[in-house]
């Protein structure tokens, strides 16, 4: 089974983003980190996909999670 593609839209100063990234790293899950503070295209993409402007936004394949909720993230990551 192919791994799910995980993208996190974050800002460098956001503690919730850091917790989410640390959590993914600890679980050994590869992810693409898109820094919306400097990458305007990523910021637009995040707003378009999530319909809102708060970080973090995490996409797991086609699922979208706004904020960092560990239980929900685990659920979305499970095969």
């Amino acid at each position, binding site marked *: 089974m192919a791994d799910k593609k995980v993208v996190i839209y974050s800002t460098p100063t*956001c*503690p919730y*983003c*850091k917790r989410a990234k640390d959590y993914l790293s600890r679980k050994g899950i590869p992810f693409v980190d898109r820094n919306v503070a*400097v990458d305007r295209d990523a910021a637009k993409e995040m707003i378009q996909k999530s*319909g809102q402007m*708060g970080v973090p936004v995490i996409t797991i394949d086609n699922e979208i999670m706004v904020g960092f909720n*560990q*239980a929900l993230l685990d659920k979305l990551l499970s095969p």
Partner: protein
Amino acid sequence: MYDLMIIGGGPAGLAASVYAARKQLNTLLISIDIGGQVNKTLGVENYMGYQFIEGPELIDKFQTQVSQFPIDQKIGYKVSRLEKLDDGFEAISEAGDRYQAKAVIYAAGKSPRKLNVPGEAELTGRGVTYCAICDGPVFSGQRVAVVGGGNSALEAALDMVKIAEHVDLVSLTPLTGDAILIDKLSAAKNLSIFTEYQTEKIEGQGFVSGMLIRDLKSSEGKRLELTGVFIEIGLTPNSEAVSGLVELNKWGEVPISCSCETGIPGLYAAGDVTDVPEKQIVVAAGEGAKATLQAHRYLQRLAT
């Protein structure tokens, strides 16, 4: 029925959980999140054992310590009401789930205070934010307002003048934050300060497009064109769930004795939701420990 239910997953609730596990109490930890306000703390320099640690890292360490014990955890669950039963307590979650325990430690902490103006709720996350350090950079190059006059509002304004096109600082009162922050702000060229202005409405279709404010002295209204509103007007205790059981103080906090007792046998409270004046991580953790030790004594008395 659990022996002990701990409501809240910040420093108070997590410390209470460790003590409960070590007393081998059959325990449920139920919380909307893990870490609470520490999630929004960039650096911590006054928690024992660490000269400096980032807030998220400290929470991870707390969580790891709690998770090595066999206590049940319901994270992502908000308790909306706590009720007294004949033989204990029942917590009812927002989703309608019910959990029972013989004793409860209420440690639900504090949340950002809301303005309670039209448009605020609908536009939260759509330009309205309560976490300037999180979402600030998303608004770089845009016009934003910071609402509030205390230190957190001034710090948010200082961060935003560096990256936003323009910042409107709107405060109901004269600025109450530290003079050093006010001095730093006075150097900013892209800042307008509106003190003694009431925020009346946040406008926008889908996303924020403007904000209505009113001068308290002249009663004159004004519309600010902007896309972001950072609300930094302090914190409010998450005490609604127990407001039917205990009499809250005038700030909405749960009054407790020096042993974390609420006055209702079996119901204890700890951390920032209580009237303990020092809102500090180390204090909350200590209060959580005290609450569990008291609850343990109560449970021992029940058993005999």
